[in-house]
């Protein structure tokens, strides 16, 4: 069953596919003989194309595209044969007179290349200005009138579109001119009810009104063409000559009439050679002013260096020449303020560049002067103006505060990608929330230790000084050394010397006068210790011996008496220690 159905469909569709003819493309115009002010329609017909092929068509340099492309599609079946026709239509206006050709063009469609035929158009009768006109059959026409015909690149010139008419025009529409290749266009705001005057042209009286004013600034030299523009007029007309066609009976009616403005060609001359270094494209008549907002600042504080160029000319186009400031200044991109007016006579106003400078160092600075060059069409030469600014005094600034949101270094930007470090798992060094010196334990220990040391130091010092200043202590301290010295200087046979050394030692250690050295006195002052008592006994024996020997003959003097005394002194010293 499926196979039967398939065969039926194929049988039905096969003839249709054969009936469908090959795609074909043709190009044509609606009129081949036209005037400069005429417009015509250029059509491209695509027969048996299932869709519009994609391509673009450039009519320059001979024609200006007024509107289009508009698209239309027709489909028909005649005698079982289907056909479709797709039409692209362009409304064009010629840019020059003569035998002009709309060239052929090729395009690809579904893998196949198609080519259109070239189409010829004959253009006659260009109107350049009213004086050149020999005949004016039209009842309404528009002239393009520039304020100046001989211009240089960059020179702004005013151009008016003036309507001359002998019909009753009740309204008009004239779209602003958006762009012209090789020039900047400024449309001047125009009243909807322009002033109307009467002008005699070739012996005929016309009403004249300026419909549009533009300021055109060529950006390059060479031919600059203001292309034809379409202006739609609402014209009041009357019907035929019948009685009832009188306006009283409503016999008048309004009719739309399109007028194409003639193309106008400027021959823009290039700027002459010998441009100054500071020339940045300014053409016109200008003046220059420059200044600082203050001439006394602290280092790292901002100042504003303002430069203002005022005058008439291409203010919107040029920039200010680069100024090289000292390296010790941070220079920010200038802020540009414009106060520009587009008026009937051209572009005028002022343009201000405000450079924000921040001096890094203190000192006295002569900032570079503002130097500006422009081409003066009035004087046909380049002019340069220079304005100096006052000396800048920068005083030192100990603080630098730079509040700059966007000044992160690449390292800082990299650092910003990192995360914070992890938390601590345990506490240590827990302390009261408020730091209190009186409650810190370790501080208390340190203070206590220092205090104890100080007390010890003061106490010991007191003791030390007391002893050092005590004569008895001084005698005791030197008693032993004095006794030793006395014995050393005494011969072993000099009993008096030996006895005197012992007596002096005893007087020193017990703080006695030498006359007070007696057994009884010594016994009273002698230490009570058991060992001391033995020494005291020996001392008493020795003293008695020395006393007895005073009266004995010299030959009975024991030979070791000096050693005995020396030994006794040593024993006494040991006890004293």
């Amino acid at each position, binding site marked *: 069953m499926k196979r039967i159905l398939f065969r039926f469909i194929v049988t039905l569709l096969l003839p249709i596919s054969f009936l469908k003819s090959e795609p074909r493309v043709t190009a044509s115009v609606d009129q081949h003989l036209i005037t400069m002010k005429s417009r015509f329609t250029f059509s491209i017909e695509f027969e048996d194309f299932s869709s519009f092929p994609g391509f673009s068509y450039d009519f320059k340099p001979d024609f200006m595209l007024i509107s289009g492309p508009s698209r239309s599609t027709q489909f028909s079946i005649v005698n079982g044969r289907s056909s479709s026709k797709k039409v692209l239509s362009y409304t064009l206006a010629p840019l020059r007179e003569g035998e002009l050709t709309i060239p052929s063009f090729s395009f690809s469609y579904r893998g196949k290349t198609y080519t259109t035929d070239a189409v010829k158009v004959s253009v006659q009768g260009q109107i350049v200005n009213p004086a050149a006109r020999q005949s004016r059959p039209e009842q309404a026409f528009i002239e393009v009138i520039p304020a100046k015909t001989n211009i240089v690149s960059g020179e702004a010139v005013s151009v008016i579109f003036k309507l001359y008419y002998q019909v009753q025009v009740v309204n008009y529409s004239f779209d602003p001119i958006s762009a012209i290749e090789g020039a900047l266009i400024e449309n001047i705001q125009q009243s909807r009810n322009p002033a109307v005057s009467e002008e005699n042209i070739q012996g005929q009286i016309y009403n004249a009104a300026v419909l549009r004013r533009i300021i055109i600034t060529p950006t390059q030299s060479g031919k600059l063409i203001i292309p034809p523009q379409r202006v739609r007029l609402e014209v009041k007309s009357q019907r035929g000559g019948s009685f009832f066609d009188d306006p009283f009976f409503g016999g008048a009616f309004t009719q739309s009439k399109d007028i194409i403005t003639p193309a106008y060609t400027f021959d823009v001359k290039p700027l002459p050679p010998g441009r100054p270094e500071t020339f940045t494209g300014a053409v016109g008549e200008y003046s220059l002013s420059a200044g600082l907002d203050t001439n006394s600042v602290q280092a*790292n504080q901002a100042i504003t260096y303002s430069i203002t160029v005022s005058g008439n000319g291409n203010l919107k186009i040029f920039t200010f020449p680069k100024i090289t400031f000292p390296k010790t200044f941070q220079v920010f991109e200038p802020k540009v303020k414009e106060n520009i007016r587009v008026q009937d006579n051209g572009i005028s106003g002022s343009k201000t560049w405000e450079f924000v400078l921040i001096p890094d160092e203190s000192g006295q600075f002569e900032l570079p002067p503002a130097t500006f060059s422009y081409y003066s069409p009035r004087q046909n030469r380049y002019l340069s103006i220079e304005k100096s600014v006052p000396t800048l005094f920068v005083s030192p600034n100990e*603080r*630098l*505060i*730079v*509040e*700059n*949101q966007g*000044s*992160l270094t690449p390292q*800082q930007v990299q*650092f*910003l990608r*990192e*995360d*914070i*470090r*992890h*938390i*601590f*798992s*345990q*506490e*240590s*060094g*827990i*302390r*009261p*929330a408020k*730091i209190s*010196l009186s409650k*810190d334990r*370790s*501080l208390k220990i*340190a*203070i206590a*230790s*220092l205090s104890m*040391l*100080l007390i*010890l*130091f003061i106490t*010991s*010092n007191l*003791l*030390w000084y007391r002893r050092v200043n005590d004569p008895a202590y001084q005698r005791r301290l030197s008693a032993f050394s004095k006794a030793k010295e006395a014995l050393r200087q005494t011969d072993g046979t000099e009993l008096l010397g030996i006895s005197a050394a012992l007596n002096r030692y005893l007087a020193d250690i017990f703080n006695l006068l030498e006359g007070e050295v007696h057994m009884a006195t010594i016994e009273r002052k002698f230490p009570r210790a058991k060992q001391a008592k033995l020494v005291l006994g020996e001392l008493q024996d020795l003293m008695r011996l020395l006393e007895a020997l005073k009266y004995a003959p010299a030959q009975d003097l024991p030979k070791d008496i000096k050693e005995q005394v020396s030994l006794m002194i040593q024993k006494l010293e040991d006890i004293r220690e």
Partner: protein
Amino acid sequence: MRQRILILFILISVPVFLLGESEREKLFSKANQAYEAGQMQEALERYLDLLYSGEVSFQLYYNLGNAYYRMGKIGRAIQYWEKAALLQPQNGDLNHNLELARLKILDRVVLPKAFFLFEYYWDFRSSADMLSWLKRTIWLAFFTLFFWFLPYWLILGKNIRSNLNHYLKIPKIILLILFSASILISIDAIRYNYGNHQAIVISNEVQVKSAPLISSNTLFILHEGSKVNLILDENKEWYKISYYGDKSGWVRREDLGEI
């Protein structure tokens, strides 16, 4: 009887003391667990409970700062990290976090580099807090006194002062220099600690007023995280502040967090 009372007192006080310590540790640990689980609000509340107990630590301030940071409150985070910096100024983790947070605030201030010796000195001073400097000074005083006068004390018994004096000459001079330097740094640390009342802006945007009145003129605007100096001229609702010594004005207390 006295002995029994003493033993009873020890038996009661020691467990109470131990219990107090472990309770704090438990709270801190629970707060950390909440933080690690991403429950920042809970972690924050627990850390704040510890803070309101009257005792603090470097780690508590640090963790509090982290919790605030995770909650997007960068002003509060900086406030607590700055508090932590007063206790451990040289902590690497803390300085990393602070540096990162400061890059994210709107009113970033870049101060010029000071004379390098000053920078060395400030780093050295901030290597310890005021209390540590005081302790160091006192111990240095102790040792200086000890070594300086040791020979005089030893002479009380024996006459060996001259030899000892000779050997101790250089250590005594070094100690004296260290002690003198430590005194100066301690005085500077005390002056810095008590003379620097600072605060952090904790609201998104703060209007600094010319007077402590809502209707007064706005002098300038500060954003969250900015550090200001508090001038000791305040009332119940307002702080007088100065911003890097250049600008001053009044700010509502609720917009600032004291360090």
